[in-house]
């Protein structure tokens, strides 16, 4: 099986192939289930074995995320912005690897793969800059009757489950992940099932950036197996359903209702497979940050 090639070395040299693992709590475990599945190009050529994560892996990921929530949410806005910006910095250094994985995994030519990596990097930069503006754009001070200073500020929702877009393996994922993180949430991501390789490489970037372990946890495997567990998990506060098949939307939302999860879904009429993630106007929006924010209103007394 040819691994994703990072350019061609001397003919005599044998590649050191990468093992694609899960990312949980800042570590790279294999799935506890010992299962893998074969990742192929759209043309059916084998690319790599990916971990087929289990329900138990998912529960571990939620536990790791919950543990990471308070300290991540407590970071100052500018600090969080700098940390996300650094993800962009480090992605630049891995550009060729991402391009190779995307062109192989998505079956697109190098130019298109390069464009989507560029935009993924720029997307981190765009969202990073929001961290210290959210409070001003989305918050308010409210003119109430009575002697109170009344203000409303956004706060993170908590543990956000993200079902990544299926087709756009890196740009789609970053476009859903960055808005959840910049608001101070922690995440459990189920990567694109058919195209998980670039997502795993992104976790290697995250692990060497300043994003604390547990803030992003990423599983590869069967969405049909993992998503119902994610939707039903009572310690998951919100779920991004972008990457689920339309046929399971009702089941996922129904299951999520049991713990009043916040649900983010594709806009009406948008089909995952046809959404253009390179359209910056449509694919990066402050509303997507707000989808995982809670508004807190404080009545503070005024008096001598």
């Amino acid at each position, binding site marked *: 099986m040819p691994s994703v090639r990072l350019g061609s070395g001397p003919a005599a040299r044998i590649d050191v192939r990468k093992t694609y693992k899960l990312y949980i709590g800042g570590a790279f475990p294999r799935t506890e289930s010992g299962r893998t599945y074969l990742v192929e190009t759209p043309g059916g050529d084998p690319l790599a074995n990916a971990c087929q994560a289990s329900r138990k892996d998912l529960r571990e990921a939620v536990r790791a995320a919950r543990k990471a929530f308070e300290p991540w949410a407590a970071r100052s806005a500018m600090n969080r912005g700098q940390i996300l910006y650094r993800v962009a910095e480090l992605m630049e250094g891995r550009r060729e690897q991402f391009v190779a994985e995307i062109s192989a995994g998505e079956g697109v030519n190098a130019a298109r793969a390069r464009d989507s990596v560029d935009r993924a990097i720029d997307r981190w930069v765009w969202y990073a800059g929001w961290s210290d503006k959210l409070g001003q754009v989305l918050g308010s001070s409210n003119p109430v009757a009575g002697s109170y200073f009344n203000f409303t500020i956004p706060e993170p929702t908590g543990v956000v489950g993200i079902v990544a877009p299926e087709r756009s393996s890196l740009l789609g994922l970053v476009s859903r992940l960055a808005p959840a993180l910049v608001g101070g949430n922690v995440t459990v991501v189920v990567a694109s099932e058919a195209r998980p390789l670039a997502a795993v490489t992104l976790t290697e970037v995250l692990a060497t950036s300043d994003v604390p372990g547990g803030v992003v946890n990423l599983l590869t495997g069967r969405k049909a197996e993992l998503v119902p567990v994610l939707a039903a998990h009572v310690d998951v506060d919100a779920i991004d359903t972008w990457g689920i098949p339309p046929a399971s939307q009702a089941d996922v*939302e129904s299951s999520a209702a*049991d713990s*009043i999860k916040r649900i983010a879904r594709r806009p009406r009429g948008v089909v995952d497979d046809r959404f253009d993630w390179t359209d910056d106007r449509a694919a990066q929006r402050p509303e997507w940050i707000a989808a995982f924010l809670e508004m807190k*209103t404080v*009545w503070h007394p005024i008096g001598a």
Partner: protein
Amino acid sequence: MTTETEPGTPDSAATEPTSSLEPVARGTEPTSSTGGPNRSEAPNSWGLGDGQAIPWEYAPAPESRDVVKLKSRYGLFIGGREVAASGGATFITIDPSTELPLAEVARATEADVDKAVRSARRATGKSWGQLPGRERAKYLFRIARILQERSREFAVLESMDSGKPIKESRDVDIPLAAAHFWYYAGWADKLEYAFPGRIAKPRGVAAQVIPWNFPLLMLSWKIAPALAAGNTVVLKPASTTPLTALLFADVCRQADLPAGVVNIVTGPGEIGMALVRHEGVDKVAFTGSTAVGKLIAKGIAGQGKGLTLELGGKAANIVFDDAPLDQAVEGIVNGIYFNQGEVCCAGSRLLVQESIAGPLIDKLKDRLATIRVGDPLDKNTDVGAINSKAQLDKITELVASGVAEGADLYQPACDLPERGFFFRPTLFTNVAQSHRIAREEIFGPVLSTLTFRTPEEAIEKANNTPYGLSAGIWTDKGSRILMMAQRLRAGVIWANTFNKFDPASPFGGYKESGYGREGGLHGLLAYVRLEDR
């Protein structure tokens, strides 16, 4: 209260705390200077023994019911007209303070729901959807004005149908309802300034299901922002409190609101479910219990509708040792006994710093003795009737569980009316976090007291609940207020006050208390679709 005693000569029968269940001894030994080995003989800050009825009597001060012209039968409000339910069925709404019927109300069928949604859909076209914002604004201002003009009528009717004290319906519910219409009226022609970089379009038809604890106020929280943003609505009031919503239909007529912009269907919960699931509905808003909120979220799963939920709560009211105690006692009382405790954001868990628990509980018990329970229409009444028999049974059952699980129950000695659904203001001490009365929403005048030593412990206990609607903080220290406000996982934080509402102030929950906000600019967001400029 009808204790026939002279001032200063308390009736011996009233010197012991009484209980609707069984007499229970005090759980907290008095530690204040007013306490003593035999506390029932010691004077307290009111000059009374502990827990006894106050030794003076108020003359009855009933608000006149004449201002309300009750009809014997009310229809549905669809397409600007009052119509009978298609099946012809009706149900009775009663006065919970007397258990006597007030009126017969149409019981809508699914066919009526369909008619109402179609009527609302038609109105999204020319009569409302294409009306300029400045004209919509004027209709909403008109409604606000008419509510102000007819406020006494609404207040009396609200108290009759819901059981809440007239002083609350008169001073809180109705003025706030009018204020909500006033606030959102001003947004109707300013939507382009509300969401920078976006065009705010109406969502279409809003299905709105509201609870029985603040009938008209919840109607205003739902209808005012919906209409301001250019939506039309079908609203279902609670089946025990439909009358002020049906009187509001008359306000719509007086305001010449175009037909179909507001439709009101009455009936049981299943009609609410049929309404929210209707395929002609674009947006659903629900206020009520967390259990029903989950059913509604499930009921519309996969339908792609916008949903906002304002659900239950189990709010912590946290009192630090530097709090102004007398002010805190008033706030605690207002937090849990306001509207008989039938408030989603009620401060039902009192968290007291251990060092002041004794004196605070003593003061609280003294204050409880002065609370007047009885006729909701009496202007001196503090705690009126519980809204329904079912709710009274639920409160009674949960209070019994508190006793059974080992918490100490205290209730002031006060007579309850012989008819109607009444419950004594109740205070539990020695409550553990595991007790049902510390975990479950009681939705009644029942306060559960826990203690803490450090701010850290207070935060942990306060957040130890699936709910997250509101919280209270009592301290003299501004920096501590803001630190606590930051750490509490709840949507509304009151500092040195409780149960304050304002149309400009966003309200709504974290966690299982729901999502979405009502009030303020944030309340508008739920009723718009944002398009790119």
